């Protein structure tokens, strides 16, 4: 996405906006699915995220990085915002479903869909911290600030998330 296209998007050019949508929709859809176990929630987040991108694109500063990083950040914030509205309890784990059916046979061959399914099956609190720390690269202080929790809670959530994933992977490939 070159700067001219971005400028056109800011000016409200629908064709340029559609091009931007086409260029990033798959990556961002996968991102949304990592945060929500419900497919409809992921679609809603995808829609809300793009609306925010178009609305705030004028704030993007190309000196601070590529537009794709900026867009990704907007989407992460959108997902977190939606999660906050759901008032998720970090300790709630009863919705954890161990029955994950993989499409591939061995770990190295696990595709993104398989891994996304695994992440989706984590309790929301675990999933959120895992996504932020492992995939997005936030540190615990940033996660604590974003989620309004303590650093120690963030660490605990991550540890439990990783344990769950590890157990699942071990179960599957025994």
């Amino acid at each position, binding site marked *: 996405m070159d700067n001219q296209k971005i400028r056109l998007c800011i000016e*409200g050019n*629908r064709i340029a*906006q*559609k091009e931007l*949508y086409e260029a990033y*929709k*798959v*990556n961002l*859809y*996968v991102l949304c699915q*990592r945060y929500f176990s419900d497919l409809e929630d992921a*679609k809603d987040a*995808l*829609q809300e995220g*793009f*609306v925010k991108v*178009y*609305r*705030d694109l004028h704030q993007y500063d190309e000196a601070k990085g590529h537009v794709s990083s900026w867009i990704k950040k907007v989407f992460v*914030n959108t997902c977190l*915002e939606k*999660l*906050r*509205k759901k*008032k*998720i*309890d*970090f*300790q709630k784990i009863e919705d954890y479903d161990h029955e994950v059916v993989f499409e591939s046979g*061995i*770990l*190295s061959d*696990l*595709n*993104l*869909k398989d*891994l996304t399914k695994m992440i989706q099956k984590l309790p929301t*609190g675990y999933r*959120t911290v895992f996504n932020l*720390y*492992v*995939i997005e*690269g936030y540190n615990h*202080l940033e996660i*604590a*600030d*974003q*989620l*309004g*929790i*303590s650093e*120690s*809670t963030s660490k*605990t959530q991550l540890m439990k998330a*990783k344990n769950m*994933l*590890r157990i699942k*992977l*071990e179960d599957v*490939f025994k």
Partner: protein
Amino acid sequence: MEDSNNNLEKFFRDKFNQRIEPQDWNIPDNEIWDSIASEINKEDKKRRIGVLPIFLVGASILFSVLMAIDNYHKGKNITSLRQEIKECADHHVTSSNNNVSDENVAKDKVESQNSETVIASKLISNDKNTVFADKHSVDNPDKTTKSIKLENVQSKNSVFQEAQDPYIAIDDVNRVLEKDDIVFKTISDVALLPIIKGNILTDDSHLLFGLLNNAETVKPKNRAKNIFNIDPAARYVFWQDKINGSFDNPLSELLVKEETSPSLALGIAVFKKLSNRLVFNTGILYYQRNQTSQYVINLPYSTVDEINVGSEFENRFSHSLPTGLGNINTNLVLSRSINSPVTNNENVYLDFSLQNHTKALALPMMLSYYLKKTGDGFFVQGGIFNEFIIQNEIRDVNTESHHTFVKDKSIVVDYNKSQINKLNVSSVVGVGYEKEILKGIGISLSANYGFALTNTFATPNYQHKIDQLGLQMMVVKKLK
């Protein structure tokens, strides 16, 4: 596989950083894009409307300043006119006794329309003097006390006549004045005469009646309506807040209640009477208020992260909470005795309250419609309420643990002041009752509901609006 397990984080990170194959993901393209396009259209409309509050604020400030200037000039002119009349009257009290018997005095008996003191004005052509005499002096020339002699009238004659429009000059400049040319006006009416050069006040500050070159353009009735009143005012308000919009709660904290303390506002009120029942009012009021936010916080108490401090264990928590001050950071210390039976990650519930103190200037722009007549009786009102935050600071912080063994030990709070908007705009509707309780002092009681138009927070991540129901008592000293 073992390598991947040993480095689970790296495995997932690498996988999700790989190129994603679109065919693996079924995105309902048209449906989502149509929704996005529709939302963008709405956003565009909102953006256009978004400048409205700023425009209204600007307009209200400009309008208030203009009204203040306008009122200041008019008040100054009227005061100076009254002073002029008084000085002239005083100056000529003695001398006029000598003049009243001459041709310069209006000797004719003139019937006045009212019993108040009146001033008769007449321009005398032959000696270019103007004589003022009250009714009493006309009826009883020997007892004249308030006749005014004006000298140096440099123009030809013209007179006023008591007619439909009493201040319109007659063009017949050479006519010798008759008794009907004498005009009687109350003193208050004199004060409302058109103030234009060559009419009442000349460059040498003499009163002139009759040089109305532009008289047709000025009508006393309109002038009376256009006067703006600036009066000192005091307002006492009880607020009932209602949180509106999507308040952005963190995951495990819950905002329970928000309260705003009653506030006393002092300042000036500016009124403009638009008709017999309609009044535009604005002004500037200064006030201070306290806003308290109450939360319930749920913390998993980690025994793993505890620090041993003498006979106690401590656990430190850093939090981020949305409040009326924006997103605040808290550093909380919880403690328990070493032998207390607490399991790892056991939930600890805390009551947390925070009070912020705000100093603000209010600039209302309201229209009031009185059912009976302006300033008297019941009225309905509506308009825009602008609030400028001058200072906002944390006044008080409290925590209280509800856990049997874990107690709150200390809390430190800090926040970024730039997070909150300095300007809050709300639309207000209300009903009220107004009455003059003492001479020149009016009191009004009203109930208003304010719908917030702007967010409390400047940051886009937080959506927080406060609708307020206010019961207001306002006292206005009507200046003369």
